[in-house]
């Protein structure tokens, strides 16, 4: 079923290092992912797993001391107009045409995408005109239509508001309108609802879902929240310490997780249906800092199913993109 859809973006064996005086830290260790038109890829993991870094690397937004060491990011893979983003100058014209053009970006804190000093209209109009050849008046009409589309009441007056005059929920809607300005085929949303309250989160998620479906966009949704994943994603990539450790369609992942980490993570999510004072299943220890990545399988020190003498030494096989399975010696047999 996955193969039926068109690939719009491929990430292949992406490796990102952070080079500092104290040593080199491998923050992404061979990440491979595919984005498909009309599908939502959920990327989930705890802090330091590299989920946000993957998005930034795709958009060539990795700042020093971070560096893409190897791997490829291909836009329209296989098509005649295929573009290798990893080969472009990160500050160049070509990357900027892609960023905000073919790939829209939604941040956790919409204020980081919006300037305080310009009206939201100014900023959306500028984005529209930068990527399309519209005139001023046409661009303004389009901006109002966009604000209307993302559910901002009275868009024709709100267009002249400054970002600080809006509530957090409205700002995130503006952030989404900004991301949609150039009619992108791919949307990358990095923890788009983490800073929002639960009722606002529900509204924003519903909006994202609707937009993604009607525009048949490929959505890469990065979150730490298993609930958001369950509600939004079609396919899920679970990341741990810079690696994709499991990939599966969402129903499959929740029904029968293959990687011990996914299993433990799902069990440790507080359940809204719990019996009062019910204890949670826990994962021992904490996520190690990428600087002190364990040898072999990075999860082995916390893994309840660790194979003595193997997991600590050998690296379990990496996952191929779009291939269901887990990067684990236990799962490799079945998958």
């Amino acid at each position: 079923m996955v193969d039926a859809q068109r690939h719009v973006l491929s990430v292949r064996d992406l490796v990102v290092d952070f080079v500092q005086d104290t040593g080199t830290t491998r923050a992404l260790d061979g990440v491979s992912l595919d984005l498909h038109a009309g599908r939502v890829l959920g990327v989930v993991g705890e802090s330091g797993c590299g989920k946000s870094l993957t998005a930034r690397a795709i958009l060539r937004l990795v700042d020093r001391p971070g560096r893409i060491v190897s791997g490829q990011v291909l836009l329209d893979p296989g098509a005649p107009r295929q573009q290798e983003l990893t080969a472009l100058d990160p500050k160049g014209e070509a990357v900027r045409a892609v960023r905000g053009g073919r790939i829209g970006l939604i941040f956790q804190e919409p204020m980081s995408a919006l300037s305080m000093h310009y009206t939201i209209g100014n900023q959306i109009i500028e984005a529209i005109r930068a990527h399309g050849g519209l005139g001023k008046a046409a661009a303004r009409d389009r901006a109002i239509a966009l604000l209307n589309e993302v559910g901002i009441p009275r868009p024709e007056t709100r267009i002249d508001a400054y970002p600080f005059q809006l509530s957090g929920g409205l700002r995130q809607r503006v952030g989404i309108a900004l991301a949609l300005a150039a009619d992108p085929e791919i949307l990358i949303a990095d923890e788009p609802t983490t800073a929002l309250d639960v009722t606002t989160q529900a509204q924003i998620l519903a909006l994202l879902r609707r937009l993604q479906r009607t525009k048949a966009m490929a959505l890469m949704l990065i979150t730490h929240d298993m609930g958001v994943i369950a509600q939004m994603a079609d396919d899920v990539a679970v990341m741990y310490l810079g690696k994709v450790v499991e990939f599966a369609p969402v129903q499959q992942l929740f029904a029968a997780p293959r990687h011990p980490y996914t299993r433990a993570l799902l069990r440790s999510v507080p359940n809204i249906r719990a019996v009062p004072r019910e204890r949670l299943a826990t994962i021992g220890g904490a996520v190690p800092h990428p600087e002190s990545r364990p040898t072999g399988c990075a999860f082995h020190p916390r893994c309840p199913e660790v194979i003595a003498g193997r997991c600590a030494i050998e690296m379990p096989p990496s996952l191929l993109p779009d291939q269901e399975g887990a990067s684990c010696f236990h799962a490799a047999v079945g998958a």
Partner: protein
Amino acid sequence: MTVLTVDRLSKSFPIKSGLLQRETGRVRAVQDVSFSIAHGETLALVGESGCGKTTVARCILRALPPTSGAIHFSPQPGTTIDLAPLSRKSLRPLRRHIQMIFQDPYASLNPRMMVGDIIAEPLLVAGVPATQRLARVRELLELVGLPPAARTRFPHAFSGGQRQRIGIARALALDPTLVVADEPVSALDVSVQAQIINLLLELQDRLGLSMLFVAHDLGVVRHVSDRVAVMYVGRIVEVAPTTSLYGRPRHPYTEALLAAVPKADPTLRDGAVVPRGEVADPANPPPGCAFHPRCPHAVDRCRVELPALREVAPGNFSACHRAEELRLAGVV
């Protein structure tokens, strides 16, 4: 036996503007909040940002002076003191009985003190002699699941979860009667969050603590609390035992909150009702019931008359005019 009874607590903040910082208005952050906590009980205070839950907690801890209302606290059975009017100085001997667990495990530990000294600080201030302090610190470290060697290390050597354990050890140092936990797990990773929730549950069982648990995550709240108070724009809109509140909410806002939580179950998709509208501005709340502009069940009365919090079923309190007639959906 009740440990804490909060009676019509209100707190407003002045809005100042101009060169001379003249008061031009007031934000009513908390209005007429009343609840009580029994010995050994956990009451969760939930709501969205700006609803006043943290302000309530800070008033009880007297990190903020309340504008009006009473905070009756019983440090020991038989004695009850109203904390609200007390001065900073007269509060000091009572401090040891109410302790706090902070949200941010990084900001809440002094980076310049060793872990042992951080945990020992309340003991030292209370005048516990050095040898007993050392023994108590060791005991506390073990209680919260940290190695004894942690004593001579500095906070920067610990992860978020471990730091939160240190914060819990500090809060428990003087055997408090009441612990106020302000979003104690919201800054932590899921896997670590579960450890801390379990630790809190276990400590409560062992030590018979009473706890006020301030949180926004309804999943976490369901695990830790015996009763839940839901706040919206400075007021409590519903108080009920946990299972009853989740199973059959009696205020439309509670229903909306429960519906909005993304369930970690992909089979429950698309059925979710999305709550409409935005949280009201506490500086300028709507008249009548503050929730009425967002409420699917609102009637004319809701727009003009402020509903009072009243007992609509045994142990279930709701501030909704239509609480008795509505059958609201919860999660089972």
